[in-house]
């Protein structure tokens, strides 16, 4: 019933508009051309007013909503991007304002008049050249600035970078840290199975002190290299506050490095929000759970990070905690416990 | 435009009462290319088809350079019918290339005879073109069945590297558990077609060599073969249409010319398929 009513309402609404318009049209035909100029002028006025309302509202609303935009970039890379945005903002706003004003002003100024005839003006080489060359120059500036910063963002990773291995799958992230040796254990797809979803090669000694983490903990003012991969479909590692974004592609590992500059605590002070957390989200459509792949990022001081990483590596290294006992158990052929071990491994990996 | 031509055109407009509109070539003289709309359509169709083929070949290129290793074509395509196990790299495909070129030549000659309105000549050369196309298809069928007998599949590639990166044809079996084709291997030792054992290159497992190789081979040569097949059918139609005197009645053999364009395009594509799969 309610569905029927909804459709009925919409249909009635359309019919009402249709009837009113029919009457208006009829009146216009009856009146003939006598007040064409006047009605055309009214229309021009309305159009221009609407145009200017849109222009003013669109600019004014920028200032209203500015406070909700992303806060100050929390990384060095973000600052470069922000400066690029400022430059582009300046040029595009200027173009937007000037052209919209001209457009709607012309509509009113040159509205139809029976006393006037339009100005025959088919072309002007100098003018056309001018508005080919001027935009070309402005764009050259933007291209040069942009490419310069682009290459800075994608420059060689500094050698002292902290490495985090981020693996995406439907619909969760797995964070792996290299442990004390700062080298991640090798991965090999052919080793992948439900007990070892990442396909970590446990024969590689480097993997023995690697640990998995629930939150992404990273140190401030130190380069962080995010190594990115995906297990099933495309995902995208998006750290909005750091302006970091890179697709996770199955079969092709990607990476991106950045240097965080504001700790979580400082950001809480800046935003005056004690609840604030940096967040990691997925920015590439990956299926029905795309919208809730969340991880928390904690930016801490370098000392804190080192302490945390060392403890984790010693106490929580996946190999020593899960794989080694499993291996020992299987060599001792104590099959009775292996199923519970398997369960333990699965939970730990998750 | 000169006044005279204008008048001439005006004349041609007079009999419009009989037909709702004129044939499409009413203003052929307006064409900046001075070709009829039919030929032009064929040309642009071929241009767009060239983009389809290029996309396939570019895919081939991108996947080939992105992979760690690629089977050596001289090793993969070295068989020849009636030659047993003798290895003749490039032998058979060269023959296929010659067949296709010759077939193309025959069709050009048919087109030239068409210009002279020589029905017999057209028929003769068209027959040659059709025979060449059919022979090419036969060769391709043989090559496909040979590679399939060696174990190559769209989803599986038995051509694998040894530790030095040399290409070997490995024996493959269907895994009874998963029903999928896999290499017959013990440890990392694989048996090749002659029963010799060799060590599999690093990074390769029981799922065989680069998976996309078979897919690309069957996909691209198959798509080309499909074009050849269509071309043969079209040529057969052209042959019978000529035989029935259809084009004589129309007054020109332009249809043969259009069929020819399509046929040469098939030849053109083969040049690049030959380049990508067999030479590079």
């Amino acid at each position, binding site marked *: 019933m309610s569905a029927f009513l909804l459709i009925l309402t919409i249909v009635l609404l359309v019919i009402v508009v249709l009837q009113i318009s029919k009457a208006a049209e009829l009146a216009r035909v009856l009146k003939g051309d006598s007040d064409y100029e006047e009605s055309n002028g009214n229309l021009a006025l309305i159009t221009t007013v609407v145009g200017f309302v849109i222009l003013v509202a669109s600019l004014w609303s920028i200032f209203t909503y500015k406070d909700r935009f992303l806060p100050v970039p929390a990384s060095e890379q973000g600052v470069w991007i922000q400066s690029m945005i400022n430059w582009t903002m300046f040029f595009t706003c200027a173009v937007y304002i000037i052209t919209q004003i001209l457009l709607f002003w012309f509509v009113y100024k040159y509205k139809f008049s029976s006393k006037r005839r339009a100005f025959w*003006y088919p072309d002007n080489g100098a003018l056309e050249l001018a508005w080919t060359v001027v935009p070309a120059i402005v764009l050259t500036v933007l291209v040069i600035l942009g490419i310069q910063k682009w290459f800075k963002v994608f420059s060689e990773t500094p050698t002292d970078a902290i490495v985090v291995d981020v693996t995406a799958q439907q619909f969760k992230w797995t964070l792996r840290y290299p442990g004390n040796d700062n080298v991640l254990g090798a991965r090999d797809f052919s080793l992948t199975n439900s007990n070892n979803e990442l396909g970590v090669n446990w024969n590689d000694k480097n993997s023995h002190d690697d640990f998995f983490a629930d939150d992404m903990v990273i140190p401030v003012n130190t380069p962080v290299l995010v190594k990115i991969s995906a297990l099933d479909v495309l995902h995208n590692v998006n750290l909005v506050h750091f302006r970091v974004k890179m697709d996770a592609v199955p079969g092709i590992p990607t990476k991106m490095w950045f240097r965080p500059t504001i700790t979580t605590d400082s950001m809480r002070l800046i935003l005056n929000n004690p609840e604030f957390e940096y967040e990691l989200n997925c920015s590439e459509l990956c299926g029905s759970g795309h919208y809730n792949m969340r991880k928390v990022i904690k930016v801490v001081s370098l000392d804190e990070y080192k302490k945390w990483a060392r403890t984790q590596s010693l106490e929580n290294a996946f190999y020593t905690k899960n794989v080694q006992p499993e291996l020992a158990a299987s060599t001792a052929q104590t099959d009775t416990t292996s199923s519970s071990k398997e369960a333990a491994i699965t939970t730990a990996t998750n | 435009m000169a006044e005279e031509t204008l008048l001439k055109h005006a004349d041609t*407009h007079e009999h419009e009462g009989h037909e709702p509109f004129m044939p499409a070539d009413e203003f052929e003289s307006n064409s900046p290319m001075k070709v009829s709309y039919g030929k032009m359509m064929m040309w642009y169709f071929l241009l767009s088809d060239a983009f389809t083929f290029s996309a396939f070949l570019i895919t081939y290129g991108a996947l080939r350079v992105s992979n760690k290793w690629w089977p050596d074509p001289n090793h993969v395509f070295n068989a020849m019918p009636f030659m047993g196990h003798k290895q003749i790299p490039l032998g058979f495909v060269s023959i296929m290339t010659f067949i296709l070129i010759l077939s193309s030549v025959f069709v050009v000659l048919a087109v030239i005879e068409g210009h002279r309105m020589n029905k017999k000549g057209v028929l003769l050369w068209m027959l040659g073109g059709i025979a060449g196309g059919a022979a090419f298809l036969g060769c391709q069928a043989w090559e496909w069945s040979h590679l399939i007998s060696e174990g190559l599949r769209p989803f599986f590639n038995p051509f694998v590297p040894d530790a030095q990166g040399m290409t070997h044809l490995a024996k493959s079996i269907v895994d009874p558990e998963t029903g999928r084709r896999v290499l017959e291997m013990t440890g990392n030792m694989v048996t090749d077609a002659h029963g010799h054992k060799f060590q599999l290159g690093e990074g390769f497992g029981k799922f065989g060599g680069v998976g996309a190789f078979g897919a690309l081979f069957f996909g691209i040569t198959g798509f080309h073969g499909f074009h050849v097949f269509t071309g043969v059918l079209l040529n057969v139609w052209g042959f019978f249409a000529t035989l029935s005197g259809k084009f004589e009645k129309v007054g020109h053999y332009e249809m043969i010319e259009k069929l020819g364009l399509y046929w040469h395009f098939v030849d053109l594509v083969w040049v690049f398929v030959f380049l990508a799969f067999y030479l590079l």
Partner: protein
Amino acid sequence: MAEVISKEHLAHDVHHAPHEEHHHVETFINKYIFTTDHKMIARQFLFTGIFWAIIGGLFSVLFRVQLGWPDATFPVLEKLFGNWFNDGKLDPNAYYMLVTMHGTIMVFFVLTAGLSGTFANFLIPLQIGARDMASGFINMLSYWFFFLSSLVMFASLFVPTGAASGGWTIYPPLSALPQATPGSGTGMTLWLISMALFIGSTLMGGLNYITTVLNLRTRGMDLFKMPLTVWALFFTAIIGLLSFPVLLSGAVLLIFDRSLGTSFFLSDIYIGGKALGYSGGSPILFQHLFWFLGHPEVYIVILPAMGMVSEILATHSRKPIFGYKAMIFSILGITILGFIVWAHHMFMSGLNPFAGSVFTLFTLLIAVPSAVKVFNWLTTLWRGNIHLNSASLFAIGFVSVFISGGVTGIWLGNATIDIQLHDTYFVVAHFHIVMGIAAFFGMFAGVYHWFPKMFGRFMNETMGYIHFFVTFLGSYVIFWPMHYLGMSGVPRRYYSFKEFAAFSQYDDLNKVISAAAIVVFITQLVFVANFIYSIYKGRKMTSDNLNPWNSNTLEWTTPVEPGHGNWPGALPTVYRWPYDYSKNTTGPDFTPQTVPLTEQEIKELESHA
């Protein structure tokens, strides 16, 4: 209107015309269904396009309901749409399906087939003075392939596992693996089949448009005497002809990956607790193939609108289009650049950063020809004598939204800024304004302008004004705030923003956007009502005023309802370009293309040469 068309001009070419005689039997089927008449085929495209636009628009309303009121339940919608709305709430899988189908339908079925299919078919022969397309039969096939494609796509909506839901860009592996999302099962197969048929339709149409423009122009219609509409449609056809084949290749390879287990786009995949045997393929490769079409596709959508707007602005401001040749060369420039910039959609996809810089350079270059066009439109209005009606209002609205949406392209084309804005609502705002709203405005302008020629009647102007002002304001209300969402990092294609503190602050704006979307959608129904009503009951066009807009182009020299063959007598001869508006200081303020040059004009031409 002030001036009355001078009848001599029309009579010039028709006076000796014998009455059209039809010797072949005209049945309902060969007149309305399997017709080879380009005008009827154009109408078929238009009707199918409008049908799809309603469906596509409705889908956007449905998912906007979810985004605007994520906590509310709507039992009404469950009654209407069944299990898409379980318990009155949109299901996430259905959400992604609706998003995907909205994109596919709008881009391909409405703006490619409905817009460029309609107007290329309708305008090319009429404006260049041809009796019909080069091959009426292939033209008919083109429509019926589109129709089949539509049927398949429509059928896919009713598949139990749902239609394709991997986004309109159908990136594998999501679209290749039925395990990844239910929509990648049968729904995706049907999507690919439908798209293959659609590509066939576009290619056949494109071949016809190109050969018709090149070969079938009437006497005197040099290339540089063609209206800008024809130029735009010509380049659109070229773009389609060269880019759609690449999508075909990509689609074929994707079909192989899905059904034969090949590894073109797949490699090292572990899903549902199982490692799959794909190796050596590259998901990024598909993105390259897709965007090699996908980027030119946006010009397929926008160029016809640009052409029509140029024509309509010139006609209704009674001024020649400013910089005719510059307009043509900017279309050419956009066409060429459009082909070499595809990877700017993929800056964050793992693209090689060096390639990224080259693509940034090419991309920003497109702003130059676009700027030329905008300034030329503005100069066309300058010191004009502007008649406002539904057609010219939409043309003016087009210029406004094209600027608003275009400038943000300079943001997104710059790879550095794209790091922040990629896949956020900023992108959604950008492309909806510049290629969605703008293309629709071009289409509406075209429909209002050429409606009398298509159906022999006028559309209701009052409804046209309501349609324009609500749509114009509404579009800004819908899409402008999306920039702000984007600047706050809110990602697109999110079913709900609750999970993230950073994204959940826009409940208020999302409500406004959704409400505006519903209002705008209902306003489009007003347009549809106007359209259907006017076909039967609109004010009639009479044979003593065949040229209601006092336009210069050839289509207005045909009878009210042109038969098959367009001109009953000889084809008109063309002597001049189509933009001689207000050239004379006395007499009518327009000089149709069929009016011979005056002696003075010939002298001027000679002195130039």
